[in-house]
């Protein structure tokens, strides 16, 4: 078993993630004396996560998220904020480690009802991800390092794309509730914390883009289909002024599916990878 999480590897990623965010100052926008916290915004996310095996070690990571945001006129579920398409080809190194590389097309909708700007703008990303799994008793721990190179633009007519890098680290746990292991008909609880830092020329005083604290309750219907729902609190500096912090409360609903269309004879011996 050489596929356990390796400490030096993750340290390198942490340093990469923290390093570029140091030593910037905002000149145009005046920082307030004290941090200002905006009123929390309510959001509802419907996320689908597809993991489609295409060979013994490769899979297609296909995620589509529908993100809703409350507005003055549309409380609670709100109106559509983003439609989010994340795709990648993943490589399963072992049961304990996999990597992915792919692109994102995010469609941003203008939720500012008073705005006269464009209603829809695209946003592009290239992303790569390194995920480690660590069993501890019946609980599984996951470390996810995700790096995104992001081109985004505002809703204003003819606004230019700005380029930023995102540095994300997530620690997640999953504990089965009604079982000693993960198998069909198992409920599990999954607390997670993700820190999203950003860097790039536009990022002057707001390296902390988002800190997400989530707890999810999941249910494994079959080994190939799981549903989950949870609540997330997130906060982060706004790009325009590092002294101003956004806040969100997000209801998240997930569907995880992992079909395997390969022929049985190809499928069977490959399950255990290299053990």
């Amino acid at each position: 078993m050489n596929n356990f999480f390796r400490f030096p590897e993750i340290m390198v990623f942490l340093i990469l993630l923290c390093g570029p965010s140091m030593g910037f100052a905002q000149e145009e926008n005046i920082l307030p004396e004290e941090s200002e916290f905006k009123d929390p915004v309510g959001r509802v996310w419907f996320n689908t996560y597809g993991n489609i095996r295409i060979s013994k070690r490769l899979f297609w990571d296909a995620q589509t998220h529908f993100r809703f945001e409350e507005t003055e006129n549309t409380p609670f579920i709100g109106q559509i904020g983003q439609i989010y398409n994340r795709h990648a080809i993943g490589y399963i190194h072992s049961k304990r480690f996999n990597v992915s590389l792919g692109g994102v097309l995010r469609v941003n909708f203008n939720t500012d009802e008073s705005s006269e700007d464009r209603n829809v703008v695209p946003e592009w990303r290239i992303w790569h991800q390194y995920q480690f799994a660590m069993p501890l008793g019946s609980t599984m721990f996951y470390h996810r390092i995700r790096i995104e190179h992001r081109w985004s633009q505002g809703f204003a007519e003819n606004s230019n794309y700005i380029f930023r890098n995102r540095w994300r680290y997530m620690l997640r746990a999953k504990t089965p509730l009604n079982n000693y292991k993960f198998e069909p008909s198992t409920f599990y609880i999954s607390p997670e914390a993700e820190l999203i830092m950003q860097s790039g020329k536009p990022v002057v005083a707001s390296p902390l883009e988002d800190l997400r604290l989530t707890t999810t309750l999941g249910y494994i219907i079959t080994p190939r289909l799981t549903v989950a729902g949870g609540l997330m609190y997130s906060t982060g500096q706004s790009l325009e002024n590092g002294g101003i912090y956004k806040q969100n409360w997000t209801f998240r609903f997930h569907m995880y599916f992992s079909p395997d269309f390969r022929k049985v004879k190809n499928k069977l011996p490959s399950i255990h990878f290299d053990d």
Partner: protein
Amino acid sequence: MKNLLKSFLTYLLLLCCTIGMAQTQLFSGKRTAGGFTGTAEYPYKMVDGDSIPDGAFLMYKSNVNALLKEKDSFFSFSGKFIEGYPAGFWKFQFGEFSSNNSSQVVGFQYRVNVSGIQNDAFGNLSNGKPDGDWTYKISRIENSEISEVLFQSKISYDEGIPQKSFQIENDSTTLIGRFLRDGFAHDVWVVYSDAESEPSESWHFTNGLLEKIEKTSPYGNLTLKVFNGLSDRNTSVVLDESYLKVVRWYLNKQQVEIEPKNLVMYQLLQQNAAQYKSLDDFFNDLGKSEFIPSFKVSVPFYPLDSLEIAQLKATTEAYKSGNEISSELLENPQFGLLSHSNPQAQYYYNVVERLHQDFLEPLGTFLEFDDKEIIEFVSRTELASQIWPNGLPQKRIQFSETNDAYASWELESSISYDTQEVDMDAVQQMALYAQKSLDTISKDLSDWLREAKQQQQYSDLEAQLVKETKILEKNIDSLAIGKSIDIKRALDGILETKENALKTYAEMTESDAKLEYGQMTLSCLKNLGKLALEVAKLPEKELIIQEKYQDAVWNPFTATIMDEAVKKRITSAYKNVIVPYLLTKVAEPVACKNVSNLTLLLDNTHNRLLELRDESTKKLERKLKKEQDPETVLELLGIVSNPKTEGQ
């Protein structure tokens, strides 16, 4: 080395013998003769498909490993055959040795001391008959030395006829006797006991005729006259057991009770005959021989005429038939039991017993003389008067002086005989009367005994039914613990089947059909036990199937491997259609004749499910979709044995 030399010499010998002999082949290999099995080497000829040994003969066996381990039965025989007949000098050595496991090297040989028994026999033969001096010796060997001679006989022969004087001795006595040139016993044959200087027993022969026996005994010396002056006609016979029986009878006639075991002479002669017999068997297995010596003696001769021969034949037939009936009746347990409870049966029992004791037993003694072929050496009238000193038994068997039906027995028949004038005819009539009486009684009893036998069969059968029922009920009780309602219902159904079968049995009138049904019920009860076990094992077997129909699947979201149920249509058909169907069938309840089939079906279903896991079942799964008829499902799954077709 020694063996090699021996083999080489044998080979040379055989080679010399075979040179110039046409069609002579060599046998070399394993051979069994006279109860001895070992390596044999000899030339032989094929004559009319038979192999005839002809030439030097060698046969041996010894096993050093066996000797050192425990003990070894060894033998070594050498001699010569001429045209299948042993001839020339023969030497026999055989016995059984054990060793004390200590060895010594002397020269270039290991020397091991042995202890045991060794038989030695040697002498000349001519045309398969002993010729010249023959010695037979049995010795006890202790540490490779003779410690005791257990038996020794030295007899001279002339072409098989014993000659001159001979000597036979065992560890305590010695017999010395002599023969005339024609082989007849003559003069005084004496037995000396080792402890005494005077002879302990002497038999006086004149030209083969035994005149008297003198014997010392603690009560004084006995002189027993035997054949002296009895008959004017004598005949020659071989001195054997039959002869001794005749001698014994003549002695008994004089009210002298003497058993053959008390005649030392007889014992020594018998011992000698047994040793010679073993060698004779050996010779006869390989070729032809008349090795057993004939010691000739004379006996009085009363030849049978043709009438007597016919009478004896008829008497023997009547005796055999009567004896068979009486033995069968007296040994019949039902008859024995019945005689204790039923006066008529007791009466019959007593009659049979009396017919057996008074009529048949003495008749048996009489006929034994015929059977042993010695009846011609005794006077029939004297024999009869000795066996029936008070005359033949009366036809009427009296039990008591009362007047009731069971006071006496007499068969109404035309048979009559004089009870006092005992001759062959009277004996024959008496035998016939006994046989007819027994035949009549047996016929009278036959219905009765058959019924009694049947009653016995019923009670045996019913005891077994009760036993099996208890076993079944007890098993089902314990099997039902903790089981689901469906299985409990099926187990109840099994009890119901049992109850139905027993009820049907109980309601049947006594007949052969009832016995047959009882036997069937008995096997049904046993089969129900098996079915109950199979039913009770269903949850366990379902679990086995459930586990078998699992695939390990990689779940990327938990990064764990999970079991996934596969071929769910098959497992679901099994669980939701077949199992409930079979359980219902058992609960219905099932008929006795279908129990085995159903048990088999349960077992077959399980095995088939295990097979299907590894088979390609795409089409089958499609067909199973929505199929709810259990018979169709069973057929689709390819499960054989279908109890439905047999009806209930």
